[in-house]
């Protein structure tokens, strides 16, 4: 793939920030959107805007076809068995919360365990904290190895008959660690536990095949994979989703409404109360087409190459510490600190050179404590980034180090 020609499809990248060409290295926070996505959303509002699944007029039919067409694209993208298993949500957070509210509260009891990892984003920690508080179950954590990978011996030891839910991230948003999901799913299923995967950082970068990894739930967001904000996916196995109660009640999700009782629509609509995120779903469909045109294997290879290059070049800077595993065990994320320079100061200095990185705790406070850092800086890459961006970052970091070295 040619990142340079891909780059041209992202109008936002063609601008100067603080007098310098923009170097965007914050795609783990949110990715940019290609013209194809912008145009799909625009065309929907210009030509087809209408509510879905109601009314018999032509626009309504067009909107419904596009919305449901997007669902089919998602189904194929993750290789779900059917569109019944693909629920549109507001994002990964809502998807995880749906499972933690519905499935977890119905199935957990005192003595049961939910196991997560210390590398989770807050959105895959707090829903479980709340679920165990509500049910009297217990929350546990797998251990990490020193390099920030999961300690598989501990995983094997920890999962037992008391384990009911294992929830973990596909790819760490801080360390970039790619977790061996398939292996963990096998271990969990032997004990009849279900596995929820936070795929917010996984789906944009890796080919996801939910049937092959056999996870029970897979949650991800559109905006980190070239789609719009406000749209995400809850994939769940049909037999589990069938049993689950909806979390949001209202229009669109009902079958019959009586005075004191109601019945729900069939899957997937019983989980989509209210007017859905129509434009968002259509935008996500366009984003999937865009990613498929490049090819997820190509994207993975590009990310890997760029990550190798970034880590190699960043190691040239003395006093720069990189957190997390070796390049071949991680996705396109490099989290770091410059000795003696607070990451906010690093990020501000880089911003004056037009380079966008994230600084802070990355919504992963427990992991920050594990790293013994209060905050870190993070450069994250995607399809439109080039080695040139990395060179700019490295020269920016060198200047930053010099600047703060001199003022001290």
């Amino acid at each position, binding site marked *: 793939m040619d990142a340079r020609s891909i780059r041209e499809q992202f109008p936002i990248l063609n601008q100067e920030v*603080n007098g310098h060409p923009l170097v965007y290295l914050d795609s783990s926070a949110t990715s940019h959107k290609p013209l194809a996505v912008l145009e799909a959303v625009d065309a929907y509002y210009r030509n087809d805007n209408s509510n879905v699944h109601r009314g018999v007029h032509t626009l309504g039919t067009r909107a419904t076809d596009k919305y449901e067409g997007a669902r089919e694209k998602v189904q194929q993208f993750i290789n779900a068995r059917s569109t019944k298993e693909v629920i549109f949500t507001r994002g990964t957070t809502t998807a995880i919360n749906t499972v933690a509210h519905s499935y977890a509260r119905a199935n957990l009891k005192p003595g049961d365990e939910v196991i997560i990892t210390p590398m989770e984003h807050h959105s895959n920690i707090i829903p479980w904290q709340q679920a165990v508080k509500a049910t009297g179950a217990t929350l546990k954590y797998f251990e990490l190895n020193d390099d920030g990978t999961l300690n598989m011996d501990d995983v094997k030891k920890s999962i037992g008959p008391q384990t009911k839910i294992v929830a973990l991230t596909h790819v760490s948003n801080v360390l970039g660690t790619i977790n061996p999901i398939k292996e963990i799913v096998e271990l969990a299923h032997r004990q009849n536990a279900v596995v929820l995967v936070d795929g917010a950082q996984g789906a944009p970068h890796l080919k996801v095949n939910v049937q092959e990894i056999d996870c029970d739930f897979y949650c991800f967001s559109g905006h980190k994979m070239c789609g719009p904000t406000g749209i995400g996916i809850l994939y769940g196995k049909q037999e589990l989703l069938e049993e689950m109660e909806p979390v949001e009640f209202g229009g669109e999700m009902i079958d019959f409404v009586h005075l004191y009782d109601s019945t729900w629509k069939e899957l997937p609509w019983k989980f989509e109360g209210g007017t859905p995120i129509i434009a968002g779903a259509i935008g996500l469909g366009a984003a999937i087409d865009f990613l498929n045109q490049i090819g997820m294997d190509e994207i993975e290879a590009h990310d890997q190459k760029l990550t190798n290059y970034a880590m190699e070049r960043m190691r040239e800077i003395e006093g720069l510490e990189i957190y997390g595993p070796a390049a071949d065990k991680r996705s396109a994320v490099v989290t770091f600190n410059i000795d003696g320079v607070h990451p*906010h100061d690093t990020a501000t200095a880089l*911003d004056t050179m037009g380079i966008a990185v994230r600084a802070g705790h990355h919504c992963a406070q427990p992991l920050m404590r594990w790293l013994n850092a209060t905050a870190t800086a993070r450069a994250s890459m995607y399809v439109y980034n080039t080695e040139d961006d990395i060179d700019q970052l490295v020269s920016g970091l060198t200047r930053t180090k010099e600047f703060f070295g001199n003022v001290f």
Partner: protein
Amino acid sequence: MSFDNLDTLYRQVIMDHYKHPRNRGKLEGDALVVDMNNPTCGDRIQLQLEVEDGKVKDAKFDGEGCSISMSSASMMTQAVKGKAVEDALRMSELFSDMMLGKEIDPGDLELGDIEALQGVAKFPARIKCATLAWKAMEQGVEKK
């Protein structure tokens, strides 16, 4: 904005307070304690105040954060120590205005080192770093 603009943010006096913080530590006895953090970035401060007869008799801070938040805490403790609570609060208001880029009239209040933080106003993402210690002080004296 170029890299040179960093000089307008990271003035020498700021870096001096960052590297050699004044009033860092804890007060003896039963001081007013305020813990505050900036949840979006992880900066945190613990401020200890000794307030008596409407006066800030002593102030110390502890915490972790970037050069802006820590130097601002150092300068704040220096500025409010010995001041009437009322004046400390007036100063906090002046500081907020300064962060919003407003023209300020300190009147009889001496801003001293604090003026060095004026450049933060041009970096909107960093204003919360600078105001953290002042917000903690406000909360502390209101507790009294």
